């Protein structure tokens, strides 16, 4: 299934979890990928080259901290300088945070907003510019069900993801006529390291509240992101896809 054949896409947060799975799946669907991680590491370089070889696609690692605008701009310049026009951006990188409202420090709040909202926002600004020049593209922002539902202890995290979600919707209105689509994905409970921040009781309770009675796999989030990047979703924009097993 080559639904991403000839697509060149940037995926942030490819080091693990949903990002790593998305990189792998998109590569298997034929996409060339700029794979972002926060800092250089050899294991990551190695897995990028292995996946690239396995699926006969180009995977180029790029490194920057989402809070570091200068480094981000350097990476964007690298993307702009390459011959390949960018067709897609999957903004996946983010941090998770749990604390009660009254216990959330200003520093916690700032960090959530910086990494989950302002970083992806600015990156998208840069990438949109390139896409508009290329005549189109698709933006996929990975938000969270916590951005839509009321979850205890998720005020800072949920608000940062809600900000991302709303910005993506608003953006879709502005860039539609330039052939750029923008959609969000709201994963529910997903089998990643992020689960480690939840108590076992909460996990069980959440799983029980889903219609499918199970956690999602990272690859099941990845496949929806791939669909939204692909031309299969060419008339879909401004939407939020909940990928949560039915909550």
């Amino acid at each position, binding site marked *: *299934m080559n*639904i991403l054949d000839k697509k060149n896409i940037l995926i942030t947060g490819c080091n693990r979890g949903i990002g790593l799975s998305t990189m792998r799946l998109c590569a298997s669907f034929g996409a060339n990928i700029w794979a972002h991680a926060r800092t250089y590491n050899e294991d990551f370089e190695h897995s990028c080259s292995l996946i690239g070889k396995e699926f006969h696609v180009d995977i180029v690692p790029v490194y920057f901290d989402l809070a570091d605008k200068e480094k981000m701009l350097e990476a964007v310049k690298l993307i702009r300088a390459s011959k390949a026009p960018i067709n897609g951006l999957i903004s996946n990188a983010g941090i998770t945070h749990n604390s009660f409202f009254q216990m959330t420090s200003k520093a916690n709040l700032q960090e959530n907003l910086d990494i989950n909202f302002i970083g992806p926002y600015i990156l998208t600004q840069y990438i949109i510019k390139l896409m508009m020049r290329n005549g189109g593209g698709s933006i996929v922002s990975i938000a969270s069900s916590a951005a839509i539902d009321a979850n205890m202890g998720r005020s800072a995290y949920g608000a940062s993801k809600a900000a991302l979600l709303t910005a993506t919707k608003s953006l*879709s*209105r502005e*860039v*539609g*006529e330039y052939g750029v*689509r923008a959609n969000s994905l709201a994963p*529910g409970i997903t089998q990643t390291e992020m689960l480690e921040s939840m108590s076992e009781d909460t996990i069980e309770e959440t799983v029980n509240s*889903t*219609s*499918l*009675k199970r956690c*999602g*796999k990272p690859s*099941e*989030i990845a*496949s*929806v992101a*791939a*669909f939204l990047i692909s031309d*299969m*979703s*060419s*008339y*879909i*924009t*401004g*939407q939020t*896809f*909940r*990928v*949560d*097993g*039915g*909550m």
Partner: protein
Amino acid sequence: MLKDRNIVVTGALQGIGRETVEQLASYGANIWACSHFLDSSFLAFCSETAKENNISIFPLEGDFTSIDSVKSMSRDILKSKLPIDGLVNVAGITKDAIFQMTSSADLAKIYEVNVMATLILTQAVCKSMIRAGSGSIVNISSISAIDGVEGQISYSASKAALIGATKTLARELGSNNIRVNCIAPGVIDTDMNTNVPEDILHARLNNTSLKRMGAPSEVADLIAFFLSDLSSYMTGQIIRIDGGMA
């Protein structure tokens, strides 16, 4: 993507339904193509599409204004003994009239076709899916059900019923590993728009982010997505395919 899956598509005669048959066939699925009547051109379309894609298409006749007819069509599907992997409920009718001018007969007829017949068929097909332990059901609603559109009281209310049905069925059938999702198309290039006045159509398209109508094939691709494993962790969702509307 849908290789060797067996899928029931209703409303297959024209518009989104017909395009769905073509698209699903190209993705490798075998199809029961249900229509309220079978003419020679539809039968030819079915056999040509089947041959082209090296799959099977079984044309089936069923009158969606008659529960008995829908039940007998369901029996024909189940008789084949093939496992049913997917059901796409496209069949639907509309008759525009403002609220005060809507007759009870029209209200009843639209509800019967769009909701009753759809749910009766779904009940039958579900049996096979429950036995098999998996399946995916896709209901076609409309943005009219979510946004409200003047002059579409009976249509929008019937399509809103499908949204409620989707959410409840997703809850009930989730533990059987059957997913149920719903698509709400916006302005799609089909015969349903022929009666919409030019200026209203223009205003609607201007309100979309993409500034254009959708093609039936674009809706068919979203349907294929929901039938496929790409959406294996999605259920109970209502997805708008409308080019972006505020």
